[in-house]
């Protein structure tokens, strides 16, 4: 390897990061300046953030988003964990098929998922609203949670469970005292990754939401149609920063696990 390689790699990294984070940086900078439509920095202010907190529409939308995201995280993590157990621990007819089918939603366009779900809910006469958003979010989160938990499961030594049973623990005690504690980092990571998936989703939610059930991304979209206010910048910053922190915590937990 030549000596220029590290420099070249650093340069590559710099470009990558610039493409990824420069727009975000612009967004964050303009959320902190008082100009309404300007492109120039005119001093520091937090007034747009205050406006975000005082805006009733936004508050309502956040409430809807949380009402979807929190149950979605709980339910899809639970279902994902159980599915992971079934797929990883038991051999049954069609397991292979089931496992490969699981990946499909991860690569399927959101647009297709959204239209399909909308058709389905209308077909079974389900009234669109928070409930249908929750159902939709759960259905696209389960593959993610299942895969994260399976990944963790593959790293657990099966003889640990043999050992627990040998030492006198029955199946249930083994699950409670050995398997679940060892799976915990994986389950937590699944939950923490699912939260932003649900909270940030726009496309699928757009199709399955009803009147008066706007989540935050939907609300932001409708606000933008009336022109970009610096308040949107502040809100955007919050939406980026808060889930980012959650994801960082999630990956740290996953890494820390032995």
């Amino acid at each position, binding site marked *: 390897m030549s000596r220029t390689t590290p420099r070249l790699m650093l340069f590559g990294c710099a470009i990558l990061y610039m493409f990824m984070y420069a727009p975000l940086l612009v967004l964050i900078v303009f959320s902190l300046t008082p100009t309404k439509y300007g492109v120039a920095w005119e001093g520091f202010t937090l007034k747009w953030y205050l406006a975000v907190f005082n805006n009733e529409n936004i508050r309502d939308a956040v409430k809807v988003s949380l009402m979807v995201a929190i149950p979605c995280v709980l339910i899809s993590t639970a279902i994902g964990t159980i599915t992971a157990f079934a797929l990883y621990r038991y051999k049954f007819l069609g397991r292979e098929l089931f496992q490969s089918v699981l990946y499909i939603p991860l690569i399927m366009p959101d647009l297709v998922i959204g239209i399909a779900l909308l058709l389905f809910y209308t077909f079974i006469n389900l009234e669109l609203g928070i409930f249908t958003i929750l159902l939709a979010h759960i259905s696209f989160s389960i593959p993610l949670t299942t895969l994260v938990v399976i990944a963790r499961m593959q790293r657990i030594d099966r003889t640990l469970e043999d050992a*627990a049973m040998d*030492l006198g623990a029955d199946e249930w005690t083994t699950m409670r005292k050995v398997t679940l504690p060892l799976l915990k980092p994986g389950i937590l990571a699944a939950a923490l990754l699912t939260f932003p998936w649900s909270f940030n989703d726009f496309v699928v939610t757009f199709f399955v939401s009803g009147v008066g059930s706007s989540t935050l991304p939907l609300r932001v979209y409708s606000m933008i149609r009336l022109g970009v206010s610096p308040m949107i910048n502040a809100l955007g910053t919050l939406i980026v920063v808060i889930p980012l922190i959650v994801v960082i915590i999630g990956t740290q937990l996953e890494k820390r696990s032995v």
Partner: protein
Amino acid sequence: MKRVPSVELLSVTKRFGDVVAVDDLSLTIQEGEFFSLLGSSGCGKTTTLRLIGGLEQPDDGEIRISGEVVNDRPPYERSSNIVFQNYALFPHLTIKDNIAFGLRLKSRRIPEPQIAEMVADVLRLVHLEGFEARRPHQLSGGQQQRIALARALVLRPKVLLLDEPLGALDRKLRKAMQVELRRIQKEVDITFIYVTHDQEEAMSMSDRVAVMRHGIFEQIGTPREIFQSPQTRFVADFMGASNIFSGKVVSLSADGSQRAPIETIEIETEPGFRVISHGIPDVSSGASISFSIRPETVQVFPRDWEWSADNKFEGRIVEKLYLGDVTELEVELAERAPITCRIQSRIDQKFDFKEDAPVSVGWNAEDCNLLRK
């Protein structure tokens, strides 16, 4: 009063799909015995152990522990404990919690102060006092191994099942742990069933050894019996008695002494040598027979040296292998009839054996070990 055997297997069979891992095994192990299952990987020794521990269910036959049939009992209702090959310590628990895992289960109802005392006691037994608060990953392999042992012993099982517990340790540590295990076994007076592929390990620790192959026992006996008188070609080979010959019995003769009329027999081997061996009952003239000779019982001298042995042949050294305290010589007695001899290196030095040198080799009748099959 008749003593109840510690562990009994009665015609136990275990299949995995089409593979018969354990094939109609029967075995009786006495209380307090150190019993080893010896064999190469895939011979069914670990499966046998897991069957006794309850982690596998037999397809056929009966397993008894202390006289009770345990076939349908799950592992958590058996009075046996396993020390796993990879130790299987719980990574999320401290050493104390690992050892106390079995003690704390509800069914046992032991008060916490007593548990602490039992943990401290068993840690003393394995020479790891004061390790309670550490975590498994902070311990060396040898230490983890001892914790695994302590965790099983603290439950005072009737039978301790050890699955190649020293496999992952380096040679020196393994030697030390062998002595340690034997000491602990005597101290706690529990039946040990020990699985290993290392014949030296089985020899040095066991009261009895069973050599396994393809799910059956080739031979069960004391280490000395197995080492000196292997009954089958496989056991002879596994124990390092690599000189195995086959031939036909050509004559039988009483050895002359009237009080102990042991017969000696003369065997003509396939390349055409006549070998005198001590006899065994039920052997008749003309029968085909195989025998093994341990390399260290074969003597080697220069051709012109004056010496005598019951069987003496001339040959040529084809290969010499220096192994430290001993030297291995491969001597060709005839075309494609090599014999391996292991001599003290100082003897080799004295005669200065060289490859291709003419020598005479020999062994006595009692060093011929006749094989059953």
